[in-house]
């Protein structure tokens, strides 16, 4: 009974299920926020899977996602600025949930892996993920002023 595997399954079902629902239905504002939250959930699941399968090399997937995930959300915030213009989504609660979940999981994994460069790598991924999530949600909440301009580049 691998505890990490249980955690990954629960996080995937409880976290990513609503994300798929949130991105498939509802107003555009909520869909973009769901996509941003989905990036954090899957990055954390990747971290848990690398610990569950005892394969430190799987951490590279979480690293690439922590680097490129928020960039994807910024692409939406930038190119959908016109559609999001009227009431930009404010999802501070989700950002706090994502940040706290990331902190808990990274700390747990750091304790499990013990001191060393691998732990620093985990902390780096955690920091990148949380910073990216916060910046992306800030950008969604009106980070592109003058969104009313007809076309933007």
């Amino acid at each position, binding site marked *: 009974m691998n505890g990490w595997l249980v955690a990954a399954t629960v996080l995937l079902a409880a976290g990513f299920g609503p994300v798929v629902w949130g991105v498939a239905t509802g107003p555009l504002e909520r869909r973009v926020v769901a996509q941003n939250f989905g990036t954090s959930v899957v990055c954390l699941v990747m971290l848990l899977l690398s610990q569950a399968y005892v394969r430190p*090399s*799987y951490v*590279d*997937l979480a*690293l*690439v996602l922590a*680097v*490129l995930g*928020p*960039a994807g959300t*910024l*692409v939406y915030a*930038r190119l959908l600025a016109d559609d999001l213009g009227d009431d930009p989504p404010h999802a501070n609660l989700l950002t706090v949930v994502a940040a706290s979940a990331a902190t808990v999981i990274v700390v747990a994994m750091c304790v499990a892996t013990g001191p060393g460069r691998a732990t620093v790598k985990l902390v780096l991924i955690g920091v*990148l993920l949380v*910073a*990216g999530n916060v*910046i992306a949600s*800030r*950008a969604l909440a*009106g*980070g*592109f*002023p*003058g969104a009313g301009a*007809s*076309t*933007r*580049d």
Partner: protein
Amino acid sequence: MSRRMRMWVLATGGLAVAVLLVAGYARLPHFGGAVHPYGERAVSAALARHTANVISSVNFDLRAFDTLGEETILFGAVLGTVVLLRQTRDEREVPPAPAEVAPPVRRYALIMLPVALLTGLYVVAHGQLSPGGGFQGGVVVATALHLLYIGADYRALEKIRPVGTYEVGDAAGEAAYLVLGVAGLLGGSAFLANTLLPYGTFNTLASGGTVPLLNAAVGMEVACAVVVLLARFLDQAVEIEEDNGSAMGKES
């Protein structure tokens, strides 16, 4: 050749392929069994050549010729896009308007650009050790450059991304792959054979003979190809407009 005749030729050809497929399928080891003829040979060949990541060994060593085909497909696809999305006579190029971006997003893009670039290069360099390789790392490198478009605007990106250089890089990556293949030939063995370089010690950067070099060639080619591809898309979406003499102000 009437239409009916053509249908008959298609039917016979299809039937023959179907028969071959079923015959081949019948002799496959059944799913989930203990016998893996192809897997065992691939893993033993990869370990014999000190390549830790068996997938990279299959991609760049055992079936390097197929990867040459994939790389040429990508090269051809980007070439086709460049031809299709070129600026035609009745279109004019309008300089892109500067975009206002919130300061935190700008700082984030500035910090993340080198970090993403480093991550991409890390994924390319360690292709034969851990999951990753030339293709994945090349895409990460190309996406890293475009953080500048996301953080600022297209004008800033155009300043540091001379498209001509990347087109040359695209061709150079493809050529490097071919040259490495021919080098195997000149080295007395077969085209793209991994007999040129020593296999090095297992699980280190220099292991796997020519696998890391082929990885680097593919990484360079994919990164440059994606940059050229995005350059054409961005040009069309941001700069190129119909020149139907409309008196509309510059709104791009």
